[in-house]
């Protein structure tokens, strides 16, 4: 694996200068490699990971299961790519099993999710049915456990 990518995936959030020192590159070389990873659509980008309870009074999240009629040319792609265009859609996946697309949606309130499902998703040609589930509480978000446990006390110097 690309060394820059490996370091990014370790999750330490190092600056280009720090990565350059670790990898024996110049900061410009690190940045060029990151740009290339983006060009190749290997690295799609960075986003902060917020605790969902931070804005729970003004945001709701829902997962929506969609059954979709596949098309002769392109299968599910046209519908899935169209759905992915909406700003409310955080993620969109083709699934195996009882339904076809899994869509994760963010909105200001329950009614906006309802409207989105009713006025947008359900009306797309090829969508056969929808099943909406609201998220109640997050316990782990993008790899970060949220439980309110205190970090264990560690000795700064040991034998």
């Amino acid at each position, binding site marked *: 694996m690309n060394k820059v990518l490996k*370091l990014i995936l370790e999750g330490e959030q190092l600056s280009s200068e720090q990565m350059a*020192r670790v990898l024996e590159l110049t900061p410009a070389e690190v940045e060029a490699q990151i740009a290339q990873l983006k060009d190749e659509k290997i690295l799609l980008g960075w986003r902060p990971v917020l605790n969902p309870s931070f804005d729970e009074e003004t945001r709701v999240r829902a997962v929506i299961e969609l059954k979709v009629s596949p098309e002769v040319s392109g299968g599910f792609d046209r519908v899935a790519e169209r759905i992915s265009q909406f700003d409310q859609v955080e993620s969109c996946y083709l699934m195996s099993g009882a339904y076809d697309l899994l869509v994760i949606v963010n909105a200001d309130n329950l009614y906006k999710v309802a409207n989105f499902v009713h006025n947008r998703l359900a009306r797309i040609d090829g969508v056969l049915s929808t099943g909406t589930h609201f998220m109640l509480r997050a316990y782990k978000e993008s790899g970060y456990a949220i439980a309110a446990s205190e970090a264990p006390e560690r000795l700064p110097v*040991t*034998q």
Partner: protein
Amino acid sequence: MPKSGIRDFFAIVSQMKDAVSLGIGEPDFVTPFHIRDVAISALERGHTSYTDNRGLIALRKEISKYVAANYGAEYNPETEIITTVGVSEALDAVLRAILNPGDKVIYHEPCYVSYCPSIKLCHAEAIAVETKAEDKFAITIEALRKAWQPGVKALLINFPTNPTGGTASRELLEEIAKFAIEKDMLVISDEIYSELTFDGNHTSIVSIPGMRERTVFLHGFSKAYAMTGFRVGYACGPADIIDGILKIHQYGILCAPTISQEAAIEALRNGRKSMLEMREKYRERRDFIVRRFNELGLRCHSPRGSFYAFPDITSTGLSSMEFAKGLLSAERVAMVPGTAFGSCGEGFCRASFSTSYANIDEACLRIERFLKSLKH
């Protein structure tokens, strides 16, 4: 008997809020969850009673398989293995089991802080053999021969070594073995860092013909599986020595914590993948810190094992203690002076690379600033 030199340092560092510590002698990983999960289940199921003094037989059977597969010696789980509260207890108990007042033990320095005091606590004489940077801190047979004297009952070795990362090749271990047989010495081998051997395979002295019957093999779970707080280790050896250890353990400790023993079984059965992942991270961090120290002009060999770098700080003109204290007060970076591990650690400091890239990087930038300030 003096306190461990590390304790004084700890007292200073623990007062500092923004210190960057390269002083931590334990994995910076939390125990892999599958191991903790087994401990949780053990509690849920109420496995809270004592175990056999020697430890759970299921654990001893796993230890027997693991040691046979990885270290080349077979031990009977019924009679030749005992589970202890970390290697620390195993070391203390084996010394107390074999030593009479006035006996002598050879060990190599710089070394883990407890070796010399543990020997002295048995009213025995501790004979230090210096190891040197030019030998990558492996013991040499010449130094060993020179140190030997009548009355030496045992040789205590620790490869890979805390604090130097020194290791011993098979050829060297064969020479040591030959010498131990010639002088009829027991060998106590503390192999706690053995899984953290980065280049090539670890060889245990116990695998050398003629050594199994005169070696006490000490090992545990703290470093390989990031289980320091579980406090579980073990000793393998001839049944008569294990019986001696058993008596001390039985009266002093009774048994290693039951929940920790169950977690240890899981570590041996399913922990290899996590162990290898952690080792790879240590290796990458080793390469980084060693390169940075050398770039800064602090000559540092690449340790073949452990998670400690042991840079030479003599180019600064300071003693180990002056360097460590100066660095701590000027730049708030904690490294342990080499003299905490024996007087021949003078001229060196121990830097643990069991920490994040960001910490190592920041520490090295601060050390660079500190070195520049010394030149003015």
